[in-house]
C-alpha cells in the first residue's frame, strides 16, 4: 500500500465518472469513494505508530528545480486522510436525494477535490504541497460557481482571489526558503525545515507571515475571514461541507506541518500575535453567530470560532494544544458536516434558512430532532462527544501558554452553547407553523448520512485514545523540531 | 512571338519610314493654290440676268429646301421704275444667308426655279465677329458690271442642266 494510490485512485475515479451516463454518476461516485475509504482503512492497518512518515513514494519530478513527487503519511497525515475519506462518501450520499444538474461533472469535481485534499495532507515536498493546495481550490471553486446560489459569481470570485492571494504568498515564502536550502536547491520538506531554521530572525518573520496569512485565509482567522460566511452561504451544501469539513483543515494542517517547523524564530516572535488573532476570531465569530438570523450563516461563523480555537491551540506550541488541535480538526469536520446537512434538510423542505421562520419540527419528526441534537451537542463540546476532548485539550494547551487567553478561549464553549441551543430552540421546539407542519420525514438516504456521523461523534467522544495514539509521535516530533529554537 | 508585337512594330516603322521618303503632297499655299473641282460648292452668289436685273423673285423655295435653315428673306413688290433692277414683279428686299449655319449642300441651288442662286468656287472668308457671317444681299448679289460678274458657266455643264430637267426631281418644286 502506498500513498500514491490513495491520491491516484480518486483522480482515476473522477476521470471515469466523466465517461459515465449522468444517471449512473452518483452511484459510481459513492462506490468509488467507499473504495477509497476502504483503501485508507487498509493503509491505517499497515500504519506503524511512530514519528516516521510511512508508505512513502518519492519520485523525481522536476529535477532541475529539485522538486520531487514525495508523498508519505505520518500520524497527522493519516488521520486527516481518513477524515477526508470518511467525509467524502457522506457528502456524496448527502446529495442523493437532491436534484443536481450535470451530476457527472459535480461528482467528478468532488472526487477530483478528494484527490487534491489527500495530496495536500500527504505531500512531503514544498512545491508539491503548493500544487495540491491550488488543485484543491479549482474544483471547489467550480462547484461553488456552477451549483451555487444567487450571487455566486461575485462571491466565489472573492473567495478565489482571497485564497489565491494567500497561496501565492505562501509560494513566495516557500521559494524564498527553497533558495536558501543548502547544496543543490530542493523543495524537500526536510531541506526546507533546515533551511527555515537556519535563517535569521527577520527573515523568519517574513516566512512566518507569508505562510501564516496563507493558512489564516484558508482557515479562516479573524481579519482574513470575510470571504467565508458569504461563500459558505452561497455554495451548494456539498460544497460547503467540503469547504468547512475538509478544506478548512488544510489551513490548520499547514500550520502544524509547514509553518511551525519552518520558521521557529518567526513563531517565537510573532506567535503571540497569531494567538491574539485567533482569540479575537473566536470571540468575534461567536458574538456575530449569536446575532445571526440565517442558520447557515450562523454555522459558518461558528466554524470560524472553532477554527480560531484550533489555531490558538496550535500556537500554544504544546503537545496538548497540538493534540487538541488534531482531534478537534477531526471532530469539527464531522460535526460541521452534520450541521450543514441539517441546514440542507431544512432548506430542502422549507426553502428558507431563517431561524425565525422555523419552529416545532421536533413535533413533526422526532428522529430528525434527535440526530440534530446529538450533532449539536458534539459541536458545543459536551462531554462524551467528540468536541469535548478536542476543546478540553486545546484550552489546556492555551492555558499553559497564557491563562488569560485560556479564559477568553474558554468563552467559546459558553458562547457556542448559547447560539447553538438558541437555534435548536427556535427550529425544533415551540409551536409548529404553516411552514414546518408539512415537514416531510427523512428518507432513507438522509437517515443513512446521519447514522455514521452520530456514531462517529459518540465513539470519538467516548474512546479517543487510538486517535491520540496515532497522532502523538508525529506531534511530538514537530514540537521537538520547534523547541530547540523556541524557549517558552 | 505575337504577344510581344515586335514584328508588328518593326513593320509599322518600315511603313512610316517609307512615307518619310515619299513625295510630299504639300502645297505652298499662298504661292501655290490647289485647283478647285468644277463642281466645288463654295460661297453663294445671287445671279443677275443679262440685263443686270436680279433673278431672285423671293419665292422662298431655297429657304424651304435649306436643311440648315440658313436662308431668310423678305419679299417686296417691284415698284414701277425698278424693272431694270428686278426681273420679276416680286423681289427679295432682304436676302440673308447665315454662313455659320450653311452646310454648303447646294440644295438651294437645286431648289431655285429662277436659276438665281448658285454655289461658287469662292471661299467664305474668315472673320472675327459672328454677326458678320450673316451675309446680306450686298455680299451675295453679283456686281452689276459685266466684268465683275461671277462666272458660273462651269457649273452649268450640260450634265447639270440635264439633271435639273429630270421629271422625277419635280417633287421638290412647287406645283
Amino acid at each position, binding site marked *: 500500500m502506498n500513498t500514491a494510490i490513495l491520491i491516484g485512485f480518486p483522480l482515476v475515479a473522477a476521470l471515469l465518472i466523466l465517461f459515465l451516463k449522468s444517471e449512473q454518476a452518483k452511484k459510481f461516485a459513492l462506490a468509488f469513494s467507499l473504495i477509497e475509504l476502504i483503501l485508507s482503512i487498509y493503509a491505517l492497518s499497515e500504519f506503524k505508530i511512530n514519528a516516521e512518515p510511512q508508505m512513502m513514494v518519492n519520485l523525481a519530478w522536476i529535477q532541475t528545480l529539485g522538486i520531487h513527487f514525495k508523498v508519505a503519511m505520518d500520524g497527522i497525515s493519516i488521520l486527516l486522510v481518513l477524515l477526508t475519506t470518511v467525509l467524502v462518501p457522506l457528502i456524496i450520499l448527502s446529495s442523493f436525494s437532491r436534484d443536481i444538474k450535470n451530476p457527472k461533472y459535480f461528482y467528478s469535481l468532488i472526487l477530483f477535490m478528494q484527490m487534491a485534499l489527500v495530496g495536500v495532507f500527504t505531500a512531503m515536498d514544498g512545491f508539491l504541497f503548493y500544487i495540491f493546495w491550488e*488543485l484543491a481550490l479549482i474544483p471547489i471553486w467550480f462547484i461553488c460557481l*456552477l451549483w451555487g446560489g*444567487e450571487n455566486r*459569481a461575485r462571491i466565489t470570485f472573492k473567495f478565489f482571489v482571497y485564497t*489565491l492571494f494567500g497561496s*501565492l504568498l505562501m509560494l*513566495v515564502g516557500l*521559494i524564498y526558503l*527553497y*533558495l536558501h536550502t543548502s547544496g543543490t536547491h530542493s523543495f524537500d520538506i526536510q531541506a526546507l525545515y533546515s533551511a527555515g531554521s537556519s535563517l535569521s530572525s527577520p527573515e523568519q518573520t517574513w516566512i512566518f507571515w507569508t505562510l501564516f496569512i496563507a493558512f489564516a485565509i484558508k482557515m479562516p482567522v479573524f481579519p482574513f475571514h470575510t470571504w467565508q460566511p458569504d461563500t459558505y452561504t452561497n455554495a451548494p451544501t456539498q460544497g460547503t461541507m467540503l469547504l468547512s469539513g475538509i478544506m478548512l483543515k488544510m489551513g490548520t494542517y499547514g500550520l502544524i506541518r509547514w509553518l511551525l517547523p519552518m520558521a521557529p524564530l518567526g513563531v517565537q516572535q510573532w506567535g503571540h500575535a497569531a494567538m491574539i488573532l485567533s482569540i479575537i476570531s473566536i470571540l468575534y465569530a461567536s458574538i456575530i453567530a449569536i446575532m445571526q438570523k440565517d442558520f447557515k450563516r450562523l454555522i459558518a461563523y461558528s466554524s470560524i470560532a472553532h477554527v480560531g480555537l484550533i489555531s490558538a491551540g496550535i500556537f500554544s506550541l504544546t503537545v496538548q494544544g497540538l493534540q487538541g488541535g488534531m482531534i478537534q480538526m477531526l471532530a469539527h469536520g464531522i460535526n460541521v458536516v452534520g450541521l450543514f446537512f441539517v441546514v440542507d434538510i431544512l432548506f430542502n423542505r422549507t426553502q428558507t434558512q431563517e431561524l425565525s421562520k422555523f419552529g416545532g419540527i421536533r413535533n413533526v419528526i422526532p428522529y430528525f430532532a434527535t440526530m440534530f441534537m446529538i450533532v449539536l451537542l458534539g459541536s458545543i463540546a459536551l462531554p462524551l462527544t467528540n468536541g469535548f476532548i478536542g476543546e478540553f485539550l486545546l484550552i489546556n494547551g492555551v492555558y499553559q501558554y497564557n491563562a488569560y487567553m485560556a479564559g477568553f478561549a474558554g468563552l467559546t464553549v459558553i458562547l457556542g452553547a448559547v447560539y447553538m441551543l438558541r437555534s435548536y430552540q427556535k427550529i425544533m421546539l415551540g409551536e409548529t407553523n404553516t411552514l414546518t407542519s408539512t415537514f416531510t420525514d427523512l428518507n432513507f438516504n438522509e437517515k443513512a448520512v446521519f447514522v455514521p456521523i452520530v456514531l462517529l461523534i459518540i465513539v470519538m467522544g467516548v474512546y479517543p485514545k487510538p486517535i491520540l495514539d496515532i497522532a502523538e509521535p508525529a506531534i511530538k516530533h514537530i514540537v521537538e523540531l520547534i523547541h530547540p529554537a523556541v524557549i517558552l | 512571338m505575337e504577344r510581344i508585337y515586335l514584328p508588328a512594330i518593326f513593320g509599322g516603322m518600315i511603313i512610316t519610314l517609307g512615307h518619310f521618303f515619299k513625295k510630299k503632297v504639300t502645297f505652298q499655299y499662298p504661292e501655290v493654290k490647289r485647283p478647285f473641282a468644277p463642281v466645288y460648292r463654295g460661297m453663294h452668289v445671287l445671279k443677275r440676268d443679262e440685263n443686270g436685273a436680279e433673278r431672285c423673285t423671293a419665292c422662298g423655295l431655297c429657304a424651304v429646301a435649306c436643311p440648315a435653315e440658313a436662308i431668310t428673306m423678305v419679299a417686296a413688290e417691284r415698284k414701277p421704275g425698278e424693272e431694270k433692277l428686278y426681273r420679276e414683279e416680286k423681289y427679295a428686299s432682304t436676302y440673308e444667308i447665315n454662313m455659320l449655319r450653311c452646310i454648303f449642300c447646294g440644295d438651294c441651288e437645286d431648289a431655285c426655279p429662277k436659276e438665281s442662286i448658285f454655289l461658287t468656287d469662292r471661299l467664305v472668308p474668315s472673320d472675327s465677329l459672328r454677326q458678320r457671317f450673316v451675309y446680306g444681299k450686298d455680299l451675295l448679289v453679283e456686281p452689276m458690271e459685266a466684268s465683275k460678274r461671277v462666272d458660273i458657266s462651269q457649273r452649268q455643264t450640260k450634265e447639270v442642266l440635264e439633271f435639273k430637267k429630270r421629271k422625277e426631281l419635280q417633287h421638290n418644286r412647287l406645283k
Partner: protein
Amino acid sequence: MKTLYILTALGVIAMLAEMFRFKKFLLPIVLIGLLGAIASSVKDWNTNIHYYNYMMTFDNFAILFTIVLCATAFLWFMMSQNFLDSDPIAIGSSKTDHYALVLFALCGGMIMVSYSNMVMLFLGIEILSIPMYVLAGSRKDSLSSNEASLKYFLMGAFATGFLLFGIALIYGATGTFDLKTLSYFISSSATVPTWKVSGAEPLLYAGILMMLIGLCFKISAVPFHFWAPDVYTGAPTPVTAFMATIVKTAAFAAFLRLFFTCFSGMGSVWMNTIWVLAALTILLGNITAVYQTSVKRMLAYSSISHAGYMLLAILAMNDHSLGSVLFYAAAYSVATIGAFTVLSIIENHQATRNQQPATVTFETLSGLAKQNKFLSFAMTISMLSLAGIPPLAGFFGKYYIFTSALQSGYVWLVLIAVLGSLIGVYYYFRIIIKMYSPSLTDLQAQPTAVEEKGELLSFAEVGWDLRIVLILTILLALLLGIFPDFIIRLI
C-alpha cells in the same frame, strides 16, 4: 540554418500557390514544411554553428526558440483556417498572401532568435514587422483593422528609429556591429581602456538605452505600449494571435540575446530602467485589463502584462533567465493560441449570423458553457494557464521567472509581480465565470436577451482542424505544466 532556408522556401511556395493553382494543398505543405523546419533545427542541436562571418549563430538558445516559434506557427496555421476560408468579413484578401506573409514573418522571427550581428537583428525585426503591418490591416474594409495597421506601422517605424539610433551610437562607441566583439569590448572594459577613457562611454550608455527603448516598443512594455491594445483589438483575431505569440516570443528572444551576450557587463546602465519598466508594465497592464469590456482588448492588455513578467527574467540575468523566458514564451503562446482560437470561432460565428463584424465582449461569452462545453473548457484551460494556476503551463512559466528574479534578489519586484498576477486572476476568471454562469441580465428576468442569443455554437460546428488545435493546446498546457522539466532541462 537550414530551417531558415526551409521557411523561406515555404514562403515562396505559398506565394506561388495562387499562380500554379495548388492552393488546396497549401496547408498540408506548410504544415509538413514546418515540421521539417523543426526537425532540421533539432539536427543542429549542440552544434553552435556560426554562419556567414558570425551573422547568425545557431546555438541551442536559437534552436529552442526556433522550435517554439515553428510549433506555435504550426498551431496558428491550423487555427487560422477558419478565418482564411470562411470569414464573412474579410472578403477576398487572398489566403496565399496571408500564408506567404506569415511565413516571411516567421523567417524574420527566426533571424531574431539567432542573430549575432546587429545588422541581422535589425533586418530580422523588420522582416517580422513588415508582414505584420500588412496583416494587421488585412481586413481591408474594416476601419478598425485599417487603424490597427496604421498605428502598428507608425509605431513600429518609430521604434525602429530608436533601435537604429542605439545601434549607431554603440557602433560609434565600439566600432563594431558584431555581438561577439561587442561583448568582448564591454566585458573587458578594464583591459581595453581606449574606449572607456576616450569619452566613448557616454555613447555606449546612450546607445544601450536607445536600443532598450526600441525593443521595449516592440515588446510593448509600458510606457511604450500604447499602440498595442489598439492594434491587437483592430487586427483580425488570428493575426492578433500571431502578434501576441510569435512576434512577442521572437522579440523577447532578441531582447534577451542582445542584453545577455552584450550588455550583461553593463547592468548598472539599464537594469534600473528595466526594473521600473517591468513594474509599470505589470501593474498598468493588469490594472487596465480589468476595466476592459472587449475580450480581445482584455487579452491585449494581458499580453502587455505578460511582457512585464518576462522582463523580470531579463532583469534577473542568471542561469535560469534563458530557460524561464523560453518556458514562459512557450506556455504563454500555447495558452494564447488556445484563447484566440476560441475567440475567433465565436467571432466568426457571431459575424456570420449578424453579417457584421463582431466584438466579443464578456457579455457575449456568458452562458457559453451551456451551449458548448468543449469550447468553454478549452477557454478555461487557457485562462487558467494565463492566470498561472497550477499545474498548468502558465504557472510554471511564472514560477520559473519569479524564482530566477528572487534568486537575483528582486524581492520587491517579485512581490509586485505576484500582486499583478492576482489582479490578472480577476479578469481571467471573469471570463470563466461569465462562461459558466448565465449573465446577470438573464437572472434578472430578461428572457428576450437570452432567447435572442439562441444557440451559440454546438460542438459539431467547430471544424476538425480547430478541434485539433484546441485539443493540442489543452494537452500542451497540461503537459508543459506537469512535466516542465523536459523544456527547462534543455537550456
